[in-house]
C-alpha cells in the first residue's frame, strides 16, 4: 500500500516538475478526477465489457472443465482431441479477432467468442493436469476398498484437481478480459476498449487512462472473486 502511494506520489511530482503535457502522461490526480467526473460515461461502457467478459469466461470455464474431464475419462477422446488442441494452441489468439468479426459481426457475440477462445485452453489443460495428478497412492487405496473407476474419479481425482482448476480459472479470467478488450479495439461501438480507442482519437489521454484503471479494477474484482471461491472450496491444504 505504501509502495503504491509512493509511486503515485513520484508520478504526480515528476509530471509537474518535468512539465510533461497531459496528452503524453497525465497526473494521477487528473485521472482520478476524470474517473469521478465522467463516472456516468465510464459506467455506461463498463457494463457491456463486464457482461461480455463474464459470458466468455464462464463459457470457457464450463466448457474447459467439461473437456478436461472428458479427455481424462476417455482414452479414445484424448487421442482424438489432443492433437487438434495442441494445433489450436499454436494460433496466436488475438490475431484471429478480425476473422471473428467477419464470422459474427460487430456485435457482442464476436467479442464473447474471442474471450472464450482465448481463455478456453488453459482451463482444459489445467483441469486435465489436475485430474491426472491425483496421488496414485490414494487411487490405489480407493481401489483396494473396491472403488469403481467412476467412484475414484468423483471421490479422489476431482477433489484433488480443485487447486489446479482454480489456477486455471485465475489464468482464464485474466485472458478473458484481454480477449474482450482486444475485440473492442478491433471493432466495437461500446465498451471500455472502445472508449480507449475513442479517447485516443480525441487525444484524451486522461480518459484513456481512466478507462484502463476501471478495466484493471474489473480484472481485479473477477480475480478476487475466484480467490474467495477458492478459499471456500479448497480448505484442506496443509500449511506450508
Amino acid at each position, binding site marked *: 500500500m505504501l509502495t503504491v502511494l509512493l509511486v503515485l506520489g513520484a508520478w504526480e511530482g515528476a509530471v509537474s516538475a518535468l512539465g510533461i503535457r497531459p496528452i503524453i502522461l497525465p497526473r494521477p490526480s487528473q485521472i482520478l478526477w476524470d474517473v469521478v467526473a465522467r463516472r456516468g460515461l465510464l459506467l455506461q461502457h463498463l457494463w457491456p465489457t463486464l457482461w461480455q467478459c463474464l459470458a466468455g469466461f464462464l463459457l470457457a470455464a464450463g466448457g474447459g472443465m467439461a473437456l478436461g474431464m472428458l479427455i481424462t475419462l476417455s482414452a479414445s477422446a484424448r487421442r482424438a482431441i489432443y492433437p487438434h488442441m495442441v494445433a489450436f494452441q499454436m494460433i496466436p489468439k488475438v490475431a484471429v479477432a478480425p476473422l471473428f468479426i467477419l464470422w459474427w459481426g460487430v456485435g457482442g457475440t464476436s467479442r464473447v467468442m474471442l474471450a472464450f477462445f482465448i481463455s478456453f485452453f488453459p482451463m482444459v489443460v489445467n483441469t486435465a493436469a489436475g485430474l491426472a495428478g491425483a*496421488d496414485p*497412492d*490414494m487411487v*490405489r*487405496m*480407493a*481401489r*483396494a*476398498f*473396491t*472403488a469403481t473407476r467412476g*467412484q475414484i474419479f468423483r*471421490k*479422489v481425482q476431482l*477433489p484433488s484437481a480443485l487447486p489446479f482448476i482454480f489456477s486455471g480459472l485465475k489464468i482464464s479470467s485474466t485472458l478473458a478480459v484481454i480477449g474482450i478488450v482486444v475485440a473492442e479495439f478491433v471493432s466495437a461501438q461500446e465498451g471500455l476498449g472502445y472508449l480507449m480507442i475513442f479517447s485516443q482519437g480525441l487525444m484524451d489521454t486522461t480518459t484513456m487512462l481512466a478507462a484502463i484503471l476501471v478495466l484493471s479494477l474489473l480484472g481485479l474484482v473477477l480475480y478476487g472473486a475466484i480467490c474467495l471461491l477458492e478459499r471456500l472450496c479448497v*480448505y*484442506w*491444504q*496443509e*500449511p506450508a
Partner: protein
Amino acid sequence: MPSAVLSIQGIGKVYPSRRGDVEALGDVSLAVAAGEFVSLLGPSGCGKSTLLHMVAGVLAPSVGRIAVGGGAVTGPRRDIGMVFQAPLLLPWRTILSNVLFPVEVQRGRAADHAKRAMDLLATVGLEGFAHHLPRELSGGMRQRAAICRALIHDPTILLMDEPFGALDALTRDEMNLELLRVWGEFRKTVLFVTHSIREAVFLSDRVLVFSRRPGTIVKELAVGLPRPRSLEIEETPEFNRLCAELRAALRGSPPGPAALWGGARA
C-alpha cells in the same frame, strides 16, 4: 490347514523390463487360519508388499492362486481391509468421513455405520477428532484413523503393509500395543508386513521370513508367547531367543545372483 481363511498357492510375480524379466516373487505358498496374526518379515525389495497387494486384489500374480474365505481373488474385494505405509486419508474429508469411506464406496448407508465408526474411533482414542481434518492430526493419529477405516466394513482379513514404518520408535511401540488391543477386541485375521524383527515377534502368532529378491519363504516360526502381551515381554529370554532365530534366518539367506545382477535369470 483345515480352517484356512487365506490360502496362497504357488504365487510368483515377474515384471518385464528392458534388461530382462525381474522376478519379484519366487514360489510362495502359505495358509492363514481364521483369527491368526501372521507377519511377513524380510529385507526391502523382497516382494512381501507385492504379495500383500496381490492378496488385496490390486495386483495380479504371474502364476499361482490366492483364495480368501474359499473364493479366488480376482480383483479388489469387500471382505478385505488394508492399511498402507502412509495413512492415505483423503485430506478434504473429516476423520469420520474418511473412516466411513469403504462403506460409502460399497454403497452401504453411512447412517447405519456412523455409530460403529465412532466406536472404532473411540477404541483408538480419536473420538474427539471425528470432525477434524487429517491435516490437524499427527502421523500416528492419522494411521490410527486409517486402521479404523480398514475395520469399518467388518472385513475377513486385515492387510497391513509396514503401517508403522514412518513413525518414530516411541510412537511405534505405542501403536503396536494399540494394534494388539484392537485386534484382541475384534480378533481379525491379520497379514502384517514388516522389516522389524522385534515388531514381528511382538505382534504375531507366526512369522514367515522372506529371502531377498526373488522372495521366497525361507523360514516359518511359531511365536508361542502368551497373550495379552505388554512391552515388558520384549525383555524376556524367550522373546530374544525368537528374535535371534529370525535374525539368523535373515542373515542366512545370502543375496542370490538375481539380486546381485539386477534381475535376469541365468
